[in-house]
């Protein structure tokens, strides 16, 4: 199966201090369509840097990054946003919703970026919010939503661009265990039922049971690349059922 994202010999060096900081040291990684991939590791290990480069937000010092088969390294500042817009959806730990826009308008904004007309965007935003169970919250501002609802709006927004890749940074960190589980179920559905490549950076051991594969990163290098056995499932994951919310 072709990789949605393929990273080869990736090196990222930050020019801080006299000698600089080597954040990634020759990482090789693939994320496949329909796969739920967790990136785990201690703080400062390079997980977020790797996610940023996979998301075409940060440029690599050297190596190769192919997104949807296209080489990203060397693309211009103008080409990268277009690539993100076409292929990648983001879900953030802090939700990063626009507080001055309603839930529906947050989703519409993504559609506007894609060039969808206002009328169609409104209709599609309604559909997407309905899919995440928030159709009644279309006109609510983020400040009126719970953490879980905000994250579901963020997922709806990420889906609005119809991307093949979903990159999520600690999507459950700000949520209670029950809400976190719901969000993970949704993400799992995105991978398994809709064929998205879902890559999640997390510290949350409760979510490991949702993973098809767990990649552990330490000191900027991959320390383990296994299908779930590296990290034992958390107690929540053992007791809760798998994906229950349907995303079609």
């Amino acid at each position, binding site marked *: 199966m072709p990789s949605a994202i393929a990273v080869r010999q990736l090196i990222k060096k930050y020019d801080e201090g006299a000698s600089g900081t080597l954040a990634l040291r020759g990482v090789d990684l693939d994320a496949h369509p329909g796969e739920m991939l967790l990136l785990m590791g201690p703080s400062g290990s390079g997980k977020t840097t790797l996610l940023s480069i996979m998301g075409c937000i940060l440029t690599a010092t050297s190596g190769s990054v192919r997104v949807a088969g296209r080489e990203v390294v060397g693309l211009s500042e103008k080409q990268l946003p277009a690539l993100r*817009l*076409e292929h990648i959806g983001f879900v953030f730990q802090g939700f*990063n919703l626009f507080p001055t826009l309603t839930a529906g308008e947050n989703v519409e904004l993504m559609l506007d970026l894609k060039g969808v007309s206002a009328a169609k965007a409104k209709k599609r935003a309604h559909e997407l919010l309905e899919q995440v169970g928030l159709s009644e919250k279309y006109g609510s501002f983020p400040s009126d939503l719970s953490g879980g609802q905000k994250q579901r709006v963020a997922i709806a927004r990420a889906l609005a661009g119809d991307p093949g890749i979903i990159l999520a940074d600690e999507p459950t960190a700000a949520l209670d265990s029950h809400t976190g589980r719901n969000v993970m179920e949704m993400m799992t559905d995105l991978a398994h039922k809709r064929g998205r490549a879902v890559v999640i950076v997390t510290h949350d051991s409760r979510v490991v049971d949702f993973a098809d594969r767990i990649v552990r990163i330490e000191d900027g290098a991959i320390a383990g690349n296994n299908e779930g056995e590296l990290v034992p499932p958390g107690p929540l994951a053992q007791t809760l059922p798998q994906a229950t919310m349907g995303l079609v």
Partner: protein
Amino acid sequence: MPPLAQRNLFHDKVRLAVTLTGIVFSVVLIVVQLGLFLGFTTATSNLIDHSGADLWITSKNVPYVEQGVAFSERKLNQVRAVPGIGDAQKLIARWTQWKRHDGGQDSVQIVGINVDSPMERPWNLVQGSVEDLKSPDAVILDELYKQKLGVTSVGEVFEIGGHRARVVGFTRGIRSFTTSPYVFTTFKNAQNYAGLREDQTMFILVKLAPGANLDQVRGDLLANVRDVEVFKTSEFSRMTTFYWMFTTGAGVAVLIAAVLGLVVGFVVVAQTIYATTVDHIREYGTLKAMGAPNGYVYKVIMKQAAIAAIIGYGLGMIVSVFVVHGSQKGGAAILMPPSMAVGMFFLTLLMCVGAALVSINKVTRIDPAMVFKG
């Protein structure tokens, strides 16, 4: 596009109030400072600009209107003999003393005119008429200076230069740049008030005959009338303005204040708009992460700045109109001609958009990883 710019601006009412206050403050500050400068500049040459003359004839080496030197009025005949002259009239403009009822004295600038001539007549009369000056010892002054000169109503009698003067009318808005108000009277009275001899004048005003060439007539006057200077009205106006505004230093202070007003106004607007943009920096980072091209983000920021500019300008102009209106009754006029109001709109827009450009620079350099920080 979802109304991100509008919402960013209007969502936080306190921030909106701060933003608009900053812009309104800047608009009013700039209008007041530029208006004061314009008011002072206009006041320096008021008498010349409203003379209706084409040429001013003075004695030699007169740098500005208040520094006129008396010369023989026989030159009037020489002037009238030059081809191309439509009308030529004597004029006196000289400082003298006004004696109030309480015995105190104030300096005034007496303006002696030919009441039957259309040149240098008092304008904006709110009480009395120019014809009233034909009555004995009649004078007209501006209502702005009533209190200063101790005048309460038409008909009151005072002394000017030791001679009787009776107030027959009032004008509105004829300001003097100096502290000495203009007092209009007949040429004959002015000779007495200013202590001139009967055969002396200080200026001759010339109106060209229809079709006459200004430069040609001016040259002929210089060739045929000895010991005088002949200035175009605009030229004499500029000389007088330049003298008061720059040679005395008074205008430099006003000019510096006007420039400072511009600078302070711009800084306040820049700071305000910058803060408004930076308040939403994380959202712009998210927009970029989502794949928005820089142009899309810039459009949001510029639109936000433009909306703030338009509202701030509108509110600022409302305040400014009140300030300008209020100043008309004071000693220092703040002028705001329509061209200045229009210019101010574009200046406000420029300041806000310029400040937005500065903040865009900040947005351009957003650390991409910021979107991944909780």
